[in-house]
């Protein structure tokens, strides 16, 4: 297990703050940061997420690059109007580090799960949406995100997740091709979805089915060219995400491909329901059907129905 993406993010922030005086860390009493670590450019605004986002916009407008911390549920739903009007409409360089995304808040329950945030954030003009798949690429993508002109939503998790077993260099905006296979395309977003896709690819390989595995860590702008190239070859795409099935990552892939290439897109995602039980992130995701078995089963069923 690596560190959680939120801890990797925190360490990267503490590393970068002294080097770049544009950066100001705005917190909302999350406890992620030790206030004494860098008091000059760390401000805890308290439990006030609308003000957090509005203040980030004002601070950005006065020449800084705010790094905003809150939980994904609050960033995307509670503070959404401030994100939309104050940050996105003004195309300001705010980095929103949204922790506890998906069901990574686990037993904290549905108030703290964020299964709508990709849908919310990817529909906002000017917003870049990034979902690192493990600890190491969280640091890399966060650093790369500092070069983006407008706002960036960084979808982070609460818990340590496994490091990807195979990882070519990661570049913001470009899907990371983890496997290359002609029969089926598995496009995944987020730590456990990518691992599920890799495991499914192994299972399918045992059956003679060659799968591409794409880690689509940048949901917006979506790397349609890479996804479409694989989709055109295989005709079958299975998407995997820890997000509600409506309007999320799989929907983004489907709506893009529908305009380009005839391909069957099947979504593995959390069902259209609140999560009614306690449990850890992995348990809840698997209970919601986000499993390698589900990915492999979708691929098998699709292969018989491919437009190719």
């Amino acid at each position, binding site marked *: 297990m690596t560190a959680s993406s939120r801890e990797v993010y925190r360490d990267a922030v503490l590393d970068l703050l002294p080097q770049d005086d544009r950066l100001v860390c705005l917190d909302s009493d999350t406890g992620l940061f030790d206030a004494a670590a860098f008091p000059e450019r760390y401000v805890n605004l*308290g439990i*006030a997420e*609308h*003000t957090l*986002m509005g*203040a980030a916009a*004002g*601070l950005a407008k006065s*020449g800084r690059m705010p790094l905003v911390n809150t939980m994904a549920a609050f960033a995307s739903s509670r503070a959404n109007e401030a994100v939309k009007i104050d940050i996105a409409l003004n195309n300001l360089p705010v980095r929103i580090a949204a922790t506890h995304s998906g069901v990574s808040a686990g037993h904290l329950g549905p108030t703290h799960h964020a299964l709508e945030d990709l849908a919310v954030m990817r529909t906002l003009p000017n917003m870049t949406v990034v979902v690192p798949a493990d600890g190491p690429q969280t640091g890399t993508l966060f650093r790369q995100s500092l070069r983006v002109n407008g706002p960036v939503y960084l979808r982070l998790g609460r818990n340590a997740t496994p490091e990807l077993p195979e990882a070519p260099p990661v570049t913001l905006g470009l899907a990371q091709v983890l496997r290359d296979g002609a029969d089926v395309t598995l496009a995944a977003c987020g730590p456990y979805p990518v691992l599920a896709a890799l495991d499914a690819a192994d299972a399918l390989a045992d059956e003679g089915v060659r799968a591409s595995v794409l880690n689509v860590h940048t949901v917006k702008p979506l790397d349609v060219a890479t996804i479409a190239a694989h989709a055109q070859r295989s005709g079958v795409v299975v998407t995997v995400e820890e997000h509600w099935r409506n309007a999320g990552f799989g929907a983004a892939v489907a709506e893009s491909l529908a305009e380009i290439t005839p391909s069957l897109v099947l979504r593995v995602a959390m069902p259209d329901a609140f999560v009614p039980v306690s449990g850890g992130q992995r348990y809840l995701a698997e209970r919601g059907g986000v499993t390698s078995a589900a990915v492999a089963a979708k691929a098998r069923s699709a292969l018989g129905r491919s437009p190719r």
Partner: protein
Amino acid sequence: MTTTIDAPPAAGTAARIREHVVNLCAGPEGGHLGGSMSLAEILATLYTRVLRVDPLDPAFPGRDVLLLSKGHGGLALYAALTEAGFFPAERLAEYGRPGGEFMAHPHAEIPGVEMPSGSLGHGLALAVGFGLGFRLDGADRRCFVVMGDGELQEGSVWEAASVAAAQRLDTLVAIVDRNRLQITGATETIDALEPLADRWSAFGWTVRQVDGHSCEELEAALTEPPTPGRPTVVIAHTVKGKGLPFVEDQPRSHYAKLGERQHAKALAALRRGAAS
């Protein structure tokens, strides 16, 4: 804050702001009449006597920041900006016309508009960010936020008010256009704001109350140095629709599309008011 001796008198600018607003409300879309008329002296005083801004260089780094949080006062802001020289008055003809940049609520593409507004309850949080930025820069700048009184029913106002005080942002000045009316009636009958001064005091703000149609009182309140470590609120007591006796202090003044006869009647009323 110092003002130059040749600064134009604010009252004359306020009269011209009202005339622009009336003319704009006689355009194809009509406009937010009442809440723009109540703002005339507030914006006139800010732009002629208080704000350090440069119409020839609207983004200069040391400028003061004005945020019109009550975005439905946009017509008054446009009028104040053109009177201050940010753009020629001819551009006001774009208001409400297809393809024009002048919308009912201010858009940041308009020279002199710092941030767009329209959804109520956003300005004070933005100001918290400006205040933090000024402090980090060690800059001698101030941020003024003009809010409607009905706007204070939004919870986000009080969230930001609390944070501003907690962060000791004494470069921040809120101005409440206290015209006591919102779309459907009196603020006090819908969601009462009183005791308003006590509320702000309890949130840690220095409170000043003025006649919002007295440029002299406004100038004094807006130029007096802050209490160190405390943000300032100026509660400006105003009349919605001020200057137009047939709509003054009436909720129906909120939005109006003036026909030809009403337009003439309104301009005549403004002229009578200016002469009295």
